[in-house]
């Protein structure tokens, strides 16, 4: 069985492959890195750095974008 670790993405617990980078995580979620902003443990990770940051168990990740608003 594939080993996974638990992270919190947008408030939801998700099992993910240990050691993946944020860029790989976005690919797994089928999200285009150009259209989302990533916050990793309360720190914004700029797009060029997404491939350099690996995700660990217990991490909190927020993926945001622009929606309709006033």
């Amino acid at each position, binding site marked *: 069985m594939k080993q996974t670790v638990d992270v919190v*993405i*947008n*408030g*939801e617990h998700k099992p993910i492959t240990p050691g993946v980078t944020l860029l790989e995580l976005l690919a797994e*979620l*089928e*999200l285009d890195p150009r*259209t*989302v*902003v990533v*916050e990793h443990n309360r720190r*914004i990770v*700029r*797009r060029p750095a997404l491939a350099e940051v690996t995700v660990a168990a217990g991490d909190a990740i*927020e*993926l*945001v*974008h*622009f*929606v*309709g*608003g*006033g």
Partner: protein
Amino acid sequence: MTTAVETLRDAPLTIGGRTFQSRLMVGTGKYPDMDTMVRAIDTSGAEAVTVAVRRVNLDRSKETSVLHFLDPKRFFLLANTAGCYTAADAVRYARLAREAGFNDFVKLEVIGDEETLLPDVQGLLEAAKILVQEGFKVLAYTNEDLVTALRLEDAGCAAVMPLASPIGSGLGLLNPLSVRTIKRRLHVPVIVDAGVGTASDACVTMEQGVDGILMNTAIAAAQDPVAMAHAMRLATIAGRTAYLAGRMPRREVAMPSSPTQGMLD
């Protein structure tokens, strides 16, 4: 802005070094559907549109990104911090918005009360100072209090945005004197944000001499949002033009418009 009157020369609206062709700015929320939103915004003639920062929907069945429908090359995206109740939250949202990579403008909202959605001016000032320090062009949504507006200008805000009436209320401009006073005393642009309900509200607001107006619900929640967007475009221009034209003085007694001479015996 074109007023269609040759004698009236109006300088374009410039905020934080960015020039806008329209004095009407519109929100992108609460439309019945995205197609109506796109057509209404197009009809409004607005160049700046506000957007909110929210979590991506992880199940990809629903496309919620507003950028899927509005071309960011054509519209100036003004991100807001709507829904934030503390300075810290507003700063967090503003930083995320800037990272989207479009501009360093933010429509700063720090809300202090759930029922009225009135701003928490203490939190607002605190957040404004931090964001200005970080290089943001801050457009601060505030109430119609002159002293707060002056403090926001002192803090380095690029524009101050007093409300006409509470967000989404459609009550129109409740305090024209206060808004006029803010406009008279500030040097940065004053954009009235929130509370207009129909075209006459927009017109009366612009007649106060403010630099612009921002609205969302008045268009989005109209029975025909596209037609209301058209009305708002005209009302904004009408109000601005009337302000530039200079209204006649008010008087409490009548004065005949027809000659009093030449009457028959």
